[in-house]
């Protein structure tokens, strides 16, 4: 009897210790958890660097060695499009290539594959991930990306779907024509919202689109660790995710509303209104709000994203998607209509 009691006591102690540890991990930041702030900037690249990158990326998409570099093609348009650079790669006429200088972002679409919306088969996701990984490695081999900056294990997978049917409902279909695999820039295990690679794998097994680029991070590498340079600093985390989630619900959700959280995680986010900034990781919540509306219906807000400091519990939440400018309201009032 005494032995049974002793064993039971020991088991209870172990269980309590494990549970206590779990609670501690969830509820309190680990003492040794270090974070760093980094200088980040949207770089301004020279045309030669952009066309070289476009050519290398085009080679990954086509799977061919292209003999000539990309050339910049003038865009016949006004306004915002003129702020984009369109390129063509001799030997790959099906590729539509744009560079967005504002975001240091290269976008390439294989227009022939994009137009191929009747897949012969459903590709398993594992197969698409393998093909995307192969393209990812090829981008690294051509120095378009740095493998050390990415954690393939955290890749997101989305899809391109096409579908349709008859109005009478007798016929309908839905087909996946692409996987769209995104892997974001990662610093010591923390993702950067504003830099990454997206690789689209068509149902045919070919790479159908690429999107890559984003902010550049000022850092140096010491072993497996990316260390800040310049104004970047090491920081100690003082607030746990759980507390920040509670704070989000308390401070960001109006009384009548219900929050619909799309995702939440610790992340680096470049301030949208700056070209260069010192950025520290935040606890980021991407969400929409559901409000009651007419006749028992509900209305859902567009997406909002807010960040909370991990090191300063007193810091106000940061609107990570602020308006670019004040709303432009029409000065005239619409005339009352004659009904």
């Amino acid at each position, binding site marked *: 009897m005494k032995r049974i009691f002793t064993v039971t006591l020991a088991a209870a102690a172990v269980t309590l210790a494990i549970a206590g540890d779990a609670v501690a991990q969830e509820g309190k930041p680990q003492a040794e958890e270090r974070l760093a702030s980094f200088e980040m900037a949207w770089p301004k690249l020279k045309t030669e660097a952009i066309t070289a990158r476009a050519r290398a990326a085009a080679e990954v998409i086509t799977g061919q060695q292209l003999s000539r570099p990309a050339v910049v093609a003038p865009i016949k348009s*006004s*306004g*915002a499009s003129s702020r984009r650079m369109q390129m063509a790669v001799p030997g790959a006429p099906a590729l*539509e290539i744009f560079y*967005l200088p*504002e*975001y240091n972002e290269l976008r390439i*679409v294989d227009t022939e594959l994009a*137009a191929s*919306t009747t897949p012969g088969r459903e590709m398993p996701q594992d197969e698409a991930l393998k093909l995307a990984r192969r393209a990812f490695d090829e981008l690294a081999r051509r120095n378009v990306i740095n493998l050390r900056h990415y954690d393939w294990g955290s890749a997101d997978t*989305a*899809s*391109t*779907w*096409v*579908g*349709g049917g*008859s*109005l*009478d*409902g007798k016929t309908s279909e839905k087909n996946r024509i692409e996987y*769209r695999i*995104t892997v*974001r*820039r990662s610093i010591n295990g923390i993702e950067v*919202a*504003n*830099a*990454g690679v*997206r690789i689209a794998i068509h149902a045919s097994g070919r790479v159908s689109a690429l*999107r890559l680029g*984003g902010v550049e991070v000022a850092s140096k590498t010491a072993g497996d660790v990316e260390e800040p340079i310049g104004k970047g600093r090491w920081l100690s985390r003082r607030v746990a995710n759980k507390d920040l989630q509670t704070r989000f619900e308390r401070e960001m959700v*109006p009384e009548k509303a219900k929050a*619909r959280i*799309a*995702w939440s995680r610790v992340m680096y986010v470049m301030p*949208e209104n700056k070209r260069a900034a010192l950025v520290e990781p935040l606890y980021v919540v*991407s969400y*929409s*709000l559901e*409000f009651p*509306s*007419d006749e028992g219906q*509900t*209305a*859902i*807000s*567009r*997406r909002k994203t807010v960040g909370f400091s991990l090191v300063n519990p007193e810091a106000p939440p940061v609107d990570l*998607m*602020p*308006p*670019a*400018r004040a*709303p*432009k*309201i*029409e000065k005239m009032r*619409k005339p009352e*209509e004659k009904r």
Partner: protein
Amino acid sequence: MSDQFQYSLSAPRSGSARIRCVTQLAIVCLAVLLALNPAWGQKTYYIDESTDFSGNGCENDDLNDVTSSLRNSLNANGWTGQRWTNVSAWPQDYYESTMAGLSGVDNLYGDNFLLTVYAGHGNRASLQFGFKRDSRCTVSLERQARLGLQGGNKAVYSMYVTSCTLNLDSLSRNFNHQVRQQFGYHNSPAVKDDQPRDFFNATNSKTNARAWIDEMEDRAGWFTGDNSPIVLTHGLDSSHCAWVRDTAKLRGGVLLYTPPKPWGWYCWIMYDHGGC
């Protein structure tokens, strides 16, 4: 050039049969166009945008302005139209004017222009406006609106910069309109100020469908895949629907006229990063 005429040119035929067919179609379609197509060749737009949702009877989160730069680009490219905001943007602008009890004025506004745009909040097949008017904040696109039909009868393209309005699970609730294409989201999107403008500009070379999903997949400058943009296209049959989807270009000026009615087929394309 009419739908049937352009579409028949793209269909495989041979020799004299094709010439005869084309000639007949051209005559018939020209006559029909001149008689019936009020929106033929007119690059017109109507925009309602709500950004102020605080204390006006239709509570929700205040929003950024996503259509003033779109309006500027439309104007710069030879389009003409109207843009109304907040207190001047009314749910009644989209209510079908011929339906009893709604006091709808879509014959003057939402359905009186070739491209019609609403930016604000929403839900499945519905739009939420920022200012209450006649005790109403929302428009049910299923029950209260008939775009491209009845009063007004001029909308050919509709754009909803709102949450969930074209959610795939309730897509059929957006079927009561006779338009070529509807642009929207399967989820709750993050939209930066100039993205609708960038979409319009991209339709100079890209099809509307490709431009919409490409420009709207992420908030510009982000790689978080926050949006699930979707384009719903309507056509006479399966191949006509696919042809419209793969042909129409707003800024490129392709298919800027009233579609043949009634449509019998729908087809859609979407980048899926999650739903509502």
